[in-house]
């Protein structure tokens, strides 16, 4: 609704300001229209209220402090003069065996996953890096460790339960010895027990002298009285014993109440069978840290790993676990590196299969033996056992090496021809066979190459002497080794040729043999020649082994399901196209 002009607010205000006040003096004020808007009242307080105070706290409250104190080393102060690399020229590195640890690299010791307490994590995190530790301790080393070897030490040192499963030739023993050495120096280990195969005791003694010269080592050997004395020797931080001694002295160790801060098992696949005396004896020894060294943690089946862990961390895994779950469970306890991953520049390993045609006489002997053998197995029918098949396989393999009738050997002829070149070039060769008898025959025929033997039938002293002569005397171009004695622990990286005169049953053992030469420090490419007699049992075995070669990798990469490896009873029967006998129901 439109208001009249005189009632409009603007009009009323104008009236109040002047005109209407004047009228007030001459007459009655007109009544104010109640509809006019009233002016807003301004209230002026007589007393002002106090402003709110903003309180800014000063930085006076001291923060809380968590404190940690650490054990101090008991080792004697380092010598004034540091000689850190006894062989600064590092021939292995110079030959391209890989990049040695650089001065700027820092290898940190990370706490294992099972360490939960913050104070324990700090213990590891606040340690100096390995490069600093080694530098500060002024320890002598025969050569500068490779970066991956420092990683291996950083893996071992904080772990009470560890499996170092590096491929053969990457220096597992050196990593274990150097780690042990630092633990002894830091006072974390005072009593160490190293257990290795009998044939490797002198090798370990040498490696200990090289990599930890200040550590006194007692080799446990000899008659019972002598061993008792050796076990109780005071002020000897490292005891070195072979597996047989451990089995023999099991009760003695218990009786003496010996306990160890660290126990190291070399070639730990020896204890994969949990029910074996060796495994039981090893596991009975009281220890705080358990380290297992093996290049083949899974030789035949996942059970091998379970057996190994019964020593390292009893009950940690079981054979009922799926491979992937098993892999996850052991992941923080196992470190495995392969040469192709860590030694990019390592000299190559050149593999070649030499397919040898048997001589006519050999072929005839072989044919007869196989026919007769298969006929016999057929006649035995259900009575045929694995032993019968095994005997036939052995017999045929021996004929592939030497004709039992004439003594002819196509392999020997081929080998001799190859060795001519090896000798002419001033190189060295290793020849492996599963039979000591074969080695003897080869030595008789290879005298012009200065062939030496190395096998379990020889005394330790004789074997050491053979290694010494082969290494240092130019006239010896060939070393003939049995797989049993020569496949593990030896460092023969000055050899450029490896011949597998006959094949072992398990590719892992063949790899171990080959890696005597193809390892850190290899002076150049290593050529591996595997002799295979054409159209014989050797070719058939080779085919089976090829199919099973990757078992170990499958388990360790947490993938796939483990199959049996090596030759099973079924495999052996299948070599002759025979069905294995039905097994009796359990």
């Amino acid at each position, binding site marked *: 609704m439109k208001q009249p002009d005189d009632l409009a607010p603007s009009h009323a205000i104008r009236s109040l300001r002047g005109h209407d006040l004047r009228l007030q003096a001459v007459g009655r004020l007109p009544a104010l229209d109640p509809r006019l808007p009233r002016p807003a009242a301004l209230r002026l307080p007589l007393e002002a209220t106090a402003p709110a105070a*903003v309180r*800014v*706290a*000063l*930085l006076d409250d*001291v*923060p*809380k*402090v*968590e*404190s*940690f*104190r*650490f*054990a*101090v*080393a008991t080792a004697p102060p*380092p010598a004034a003069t540091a000689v850190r690399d006894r062989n600064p020229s590092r021939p292995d590195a110079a030959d391209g065996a890989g990049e040695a640890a650089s001065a700027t690299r*820092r290898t*940190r010791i990370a706490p294992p996953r099972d360490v939960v307490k*913050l*104070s*324990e*994590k*700090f*213990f590891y*995190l*606040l*340690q*100096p*890096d390995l490069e*600093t*530790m080694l*530098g*500060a*301790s002024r320890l002598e080393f025969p050569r500068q460790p490779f970066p991956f070897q420092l990683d291996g030490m950083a893996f071992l040192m904080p772990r009470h339960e560890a499996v170092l499963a590096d491929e053969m030739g990457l220096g597992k023993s050196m990593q274990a010895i150097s780690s042990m050495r630092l633990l002894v120096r*830091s*006072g*974390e280990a005072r009593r160490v027990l190293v257990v290795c195969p009998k044939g490797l005791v002198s090798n370990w003694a040498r490696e200990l002298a090289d990599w930890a010269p200040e550590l006194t080592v007692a080799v446990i050997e000899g008659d019972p009285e002598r061993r008792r004395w050796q076990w109780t020797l005071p002020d000897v931080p490292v005891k070195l014993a072979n597996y047989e001694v451990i089995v023999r002295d099991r009760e003695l160790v218990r009786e003496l109440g010996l306990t160890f801060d660290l126990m190291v098992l070399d070639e730990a696949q020896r204890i994969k069978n949990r029910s074996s005396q060796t495994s039981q004896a090893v596991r009975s020894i009281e220890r705080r840290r358990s380290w297992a060294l093996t290049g083949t943690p899974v030789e035949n089946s996942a059970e091998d790993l379970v057996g190994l862990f019964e020593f390292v961390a009893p009950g940690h895994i079981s054979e009922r676990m799926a491979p992937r779950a098993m892999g996850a469970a052991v992941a923080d306890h196992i470190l495995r590196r392969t040469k192709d991953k860590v030694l990019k520049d390592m000299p190559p390993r050149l593999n070649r299969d030499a397919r040898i045609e048997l001589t006519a006489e050999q072929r005839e002997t072989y044919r007869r033996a196989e026919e007769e053998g298969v006929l016999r197995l057929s006649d035995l029918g259900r009575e045929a056992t694995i032993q019968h098949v095994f005997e036939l396989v052995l017999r045929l393999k021996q004929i592939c090496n030497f004709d039992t009738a004439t003594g002819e050997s196509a392999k020997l002829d081929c080998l001799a021809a190859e060795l001519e070149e090896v000798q002419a070039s001033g190189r060295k060769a290793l020849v492996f066979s599963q039979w000591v008898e074969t080695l003897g025959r080869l030595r008789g025929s290879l005298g012009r190459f200065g062939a030496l033997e190395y096998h379990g039938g020889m005394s330790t002293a004789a074997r050491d002497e053979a290694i010494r002569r082969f290494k240092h005397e130019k006239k010896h171009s060939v070393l003939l080794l049995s797989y049993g004695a020569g496949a593990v622990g030896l460092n023969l990286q000055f050899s450029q040729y490896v011949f597998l005169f006959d094949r072992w049953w398990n590719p892992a053992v063949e790899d171990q043999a080959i890696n005597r030469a193809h390892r850190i420090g290899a002076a150049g490419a290593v050529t591996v020649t595997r002799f295979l007699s054409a159209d014989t049992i050797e070719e058939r075995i080779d085919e089976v082994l090829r199919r099973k070669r990757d078992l170990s990798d499958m388990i360790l990469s947490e993938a796939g399901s483990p199959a049996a490896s090596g030759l099973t009873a079924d495999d052996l029967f299948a070599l002759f196209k025979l069905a294995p006998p039905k097994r009796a129901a359990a």
Partner: protein
Amino acid sequence: MQQQTEPRPDGVAFGFLTAVESPTHGLFGGYLLVDACGRPLEFHCTTPVKVSRAQQILYGATLHGHLHGRQIGATLLAESALEPAVVLTDIEAMLQVRTHTSHPVALVQRFEHHDGAAGFAVGGMRVSPHASDAARESALREHLAELGAAVDLGEPFERIRAAIDEAQRH
């Protein structure tokens, strides 16, 4: 695991003092004492100190010195059972801890960060003692030459940072 409270009686200890800023938690302090070989003897770390915007304004230019030197540095040094030959820090503001301790304090920096500045070299690091410790420089040189032969003087600070990082995750 061996953790004892007994320090090596005949050894010299070296202090490494630093602080780590966490965007969420605030400023953590860490103090590591090592022997001449760089092995840890003691470690102390603080709960985080968070500074408000108002405190930043109020303290102005004096904030960092007060926070590092008094709040964190002095508190940490007071907890140590060992007497360090020198307290090294990689944070300039932390030098103010010197007013709260009788131990010499020095700033450690890589050469490229501090080229031409005062101080002396130990390995690849430049050590600049607090002005109050100028008279002790030759003694400091001697002590740090021994430590520097074994340890890169910048390296223990990495350990402290790794430990504080772990403490935050714990």
